[in-house]
């Protein structure tokens, strides 16, 4: 049976505020899955806590709505146990860059084959607009009693430092380009991160749709090539890193979107496969039942007093 875009939509009506950027991200996600022809039951969406976390309930795939800060560990558990699944993890900026930042670094070091979306609106929306880790120092959206006293973290630079192999930025109201980015992120072999600029119409009156619209531009359209193949020379690699950094820190009159960095590195599944006999074919969620006693007996044999 031919899949339709509607097959990726659940029966539940989203309860986000009118004008929320999350609508755009949901729509882009569904479009990307549809365009890739991924069976809904082969896709698992994993979220944290907050407005962004509800996204998984509106997609007609498997949806796992976890704890605050923990979508990445849960997503990795699902993916490593059953590597045949398409797994997309998603988190708000507080979820991903604050309470879950340790997992961001840990996942980067492993490079599992999944996509991570950061819904970046610079505030904690669900708890009424506190400053998130991506809010600029000194900024004071209307919900804050005093200007933000903490500097912002740059998700792109952090992703680079942690070893993410696909680093991109999207804009929630540019659904077409965002869907394309999500498609690329899913197809990328390894850990992909898309920092999605997502205006919060209710609490962030500084970075609104009107503020972003004239600023965002597509780096691909301006000729940026993000690819960093394995066999690249050190000098070329250093040049790519410098270009990546320039894009990652550009913020103000012009705000770049698109794929900034795409490197080749063995995925965690490939690294495991070198040590676990038969993996990923023998992955723990998909291997055939049986053989447990034999495996336990193999351990026991190694502990015998005498041969």
């Amino acid at each position, binding site marked *: 049976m031919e899949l339709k875009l509607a097959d990726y939509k659940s029966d539940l009506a989203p309860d986000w505020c009118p004008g929320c950027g999350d609508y755009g991200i949901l729509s882009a996600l569904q479009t990307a899955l549809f365009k890739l022809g991924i069976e809904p039951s082969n896709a698992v969406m994993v979220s944290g806590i907050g407005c962004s976390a509800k996204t998984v309930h509106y997609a007609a795939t498997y*949806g*796992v709505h976890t*704890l605050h800060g923990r979508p990445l560990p849960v997503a990795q558990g699902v993916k490593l146990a059953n590597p045949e699944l398409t797994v997309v993890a998603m988190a708000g900026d507080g979820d991903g860059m604050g309470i879950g930042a340790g997992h961001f670094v*840990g996942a980067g070091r492993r490079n599992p084959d999944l996509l991570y979306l950061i819904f970046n609106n610079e505030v904690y929306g669900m708890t009424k607009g506190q400053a998130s880790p991506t809010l600029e120092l000194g900024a004071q959206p209307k919900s804050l009693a005093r200007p933000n006293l903490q500097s912002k973290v740059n998700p792109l630079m952090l992703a680079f430092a942690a070893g993410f192999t696909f680093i991109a930025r999207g804009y929630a109201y540019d659904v077409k380009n965002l869907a394309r980015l999500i498609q690329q992120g899913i197809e990328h072999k390894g850990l992909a991160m898309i920092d999605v600029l997502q205006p919060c119409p209710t609490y962030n009156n500084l970075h609104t749709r009107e503020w972003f619209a004239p600023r965002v531009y597509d780096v691909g359209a301006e000729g940026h090539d993000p690819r960093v193949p394995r066999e690249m020379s050190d000098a070329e690699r250093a040049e790519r890193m410098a270009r990546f950094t320039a894009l990652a820190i550009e913020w103000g009159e012009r705000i770049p979107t698109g794929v900034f960095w795409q490197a080749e590195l063995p995925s965690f599944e490939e690294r495991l496969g070198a040590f*676990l006999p038969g993996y990923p074919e023998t992955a723990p969620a998909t291997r055939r039942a049986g053989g447990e*006693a034999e495996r*336990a007996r193999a351990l*026991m044999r190694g502990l015998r007093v005498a041969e």
Partner: protein
Amino acid sequence: MGGMERPKLDDFTWRVGGPQGGGIETAATLFAQALARGGWWVSARREYHSNIMGRHSYLDVRAARRPTRAFFERVDLLAALDAETLVRHLDEVKPGGVLVYDPGAARTPLSKLAMLDGAAYGRISAALGGGDPPVEKALARYRDAGVRPVPLALTPLAREAAGAVGADALTARKTLNTVAVAASLALLGYPLEFLDATLAAQFAAKPGVAELNRKVAAEVYRRVEPLEDGKLEPIGTPGGRVYLNGSHASAMGKVAAGLGFMSYYPITPATDEPFYLEAHPEAGVLVVQVEDELAAVNMAIGASMAGARAALTTSGPGFALMAEALGFAGITETPLVVSLYQRGGPSTGLPTRTEQGDLRFALGAGHGDYPRAVLASASVEDAFTDAALAMNLAARFQLPVVHLMDKYLASTTRVVEPFDIDSVEPDPGVVAEAPEGVFPRFSLAAEGGVSPFAPVGTPGVGYWITSDEHDEVGHITEDPELREAMMEKRAAKLAALREWLGPGAMYRVQNPEAGTLVLGWGSTEGVALEAMEGLDLGYVQVRFLLPFPDLETLLEGRRLVVLEYNQSGQFARLLAQETGRRPDHLIVKYNGRPMTIEEVRAAFEAVLNGEAGAHTVLRAGV
């Protein structure tokens, strides 16, 4: 060893002490294996500091004609590889026992022992008459207690023995452990062939090293005369017996029940289990070391949602970080096993010492109400059975199971008969039959609260999972009636689990007719049973702490004693909560050292003689 209290050489304990990182663990393994090859039932316990190199560490190797699970305070032979061992273990060799020491260190003053901390220095100095006594004063004390000191300069002996087979001084130093073991076994008159076979097997991967150590052992046997009463003999053959500790057994039980995924963050003493599985890919377990315990528990939950059998190991500090996710597994009805290796708390506490201080925490960790099972292992045999059972309970009832272990079980290695692996039947759980479309994963029409399971990723199916309260397909709800129904459905699993287990699996009793019953849980069983031999006492080992067994009838009209390793009597409080009975005597220990047979026996005798108060603290141990 003519003056030994028990019949000679039926039951023998060898202690080796020295600096951490100096290889005494290898020495103990060699000694234990050599005896095990001669048919002895061996148990070895390990005491060590939270340190890599230099601090005092020791192992007791007990060999007996029957399996044993506990240790004596006083040993038959103490092999002191350094001067600190000599002074730390004053009064811990039996009258008639033997002390092997290096005479070179005798004149060293106590203050020159760099790793002797202030508290121990003060205690030992006072015991030896005050001031800054030389180490040889300790020798006089051993002699006065009827112990026979045997001066044996092990380092020169190693140089000589290794030199005789053509090795240089540096290589000779590396054979010191073999020399210590060979010297001890030669003194005891135990045949060389068992040590020889042990060395060949131990160093099988390095033929050159094996050859050197075997030659050195033979040289030592040539140079060390057996004691007059040294007649330690082989008593049989080991057959298929295995030599393993609680970490091995717990890993093996989980594998037998289908373990496929384990994530971990390093922590003492829980990491030996995943580390062991990591080293044995033939066990078929995907082991992932992660960034913290939050990642460990949530990754295992993710793997379990996808259909893998998943488990974790951790210790108190790590378990504290897992508390939120335990509730996540609870509300999402995800099978999860956590083997909690208790160590001295609170906070970092005593990282390398034993305790049962996490019982209340295991029972209550996490916010809100959700069903869980908590069971505790008493021995390596239990660790195998319980780990397998925990996996099966988690799978069948779709809930978190906390499997309580402790440092004593983790680091006590024993010779046992091989486990009956075929007795473990991996439980497939309640599996959904041909699910299709939007699937009610949390169906309220569930028998015993258990809704049929179809893993995330099942083709042609879809549902949602959320840490929020949810409806049958897993969407968020705040509906009051649905909330009640879901809470009641989940809670119902505990009653179903209790019924499935049956009362016989929840506790076991020895001598139930006795007027006084001792109750314990976890690793106290071994020492309690041995300490009460011949006394008019019964013993109840409570295996399940949640759900708690129905003990009212058994306990009726009996005097009750609770024995446990924590300060506040956590089990005693649980007993009162569950049965309305407070123990008449509470015997506790919290200095981080294992209970000795002598001190537990004395405490039991005091109870029976009417000399015991309501609260006894056991204080033995170095």
